[in-house]
């Protein structure tokens, strides 16, 4: 342990996590914020592997959150679009 070379501080991906919470993927965004928050403290405690892992986790949860909400939004727009066009066709007897 004493000989461990200090590694470069991993990116804590906090900006991505904050973005995730504001863009409506809040449960996973909060998880990402908590993970991101632990990166710097783990790094300060010289637990470099754990810090890198927390950094990756923060990024992972943010991205999952962003993709889930993108998926839901696209699905919603498709549904509304198709149903909307469908009912328009129905009303007009097409």
């Amino acid at each position, binding site marked *: 342990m004493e000989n461990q070379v200090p590694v470069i501080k991993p990116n*804590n991906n*906090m*900006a991505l996590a*904050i*973005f995730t*919470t*504001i*863009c*409506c*993927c*809040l449960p996973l965004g*909060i998880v990402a*914020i*908590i993970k*991101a*928050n632990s990166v*710097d*403290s783990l790094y300060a405690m010289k637990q470099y592997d754990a810090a890198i892992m927390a950094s990756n986790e923060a990024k992972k949860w943010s991205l999952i959150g962003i993709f*889930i*909400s993108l998926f*839901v*939004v696209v699905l*919603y*727009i498709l549904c*509304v*679009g198709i149903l*909307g066009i469908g009912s328009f066709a129905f009303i007009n007897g097409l």
Partner: protein
Amino acid sequence: MDYKIFISLEKLSVALIGITLSGIILYNLNPNLYWFMPKCPFKIITGLSCPGCGIQRAIYSLLHGNIVDAIQYNYYLLYSGPYAILFVVEWLLPNGNARNKLKNVIENKYVVNFYVVTFLLWLVTRNLLNI
């Protein structure tokens, strides 16, 4: 060692293009009126307003000069908006003293925890009071 003194042109152009595009879209299309404007996935699934809901309507109102309306769509944006902008500023800044100072303030543990707590409190209050 560190030659990055200037703001990276790539990042700057990404930010400028993003801001202009969303500005143009939100200026011209009232999110209340068009079905294809993205809806909040949290609201679609749960029916509840999330702490960020109202951001498009607020930007639309702001771009049309209705500041009071903009604030009423989401009071929490008064705090979370500037906070998020500071993260964009941090992302844009070149590595160096200014960036580190900003980073230490906005990514401070207590500042982040304050954000998380107020975020959740706002989620509960806005849905209880219907604001």
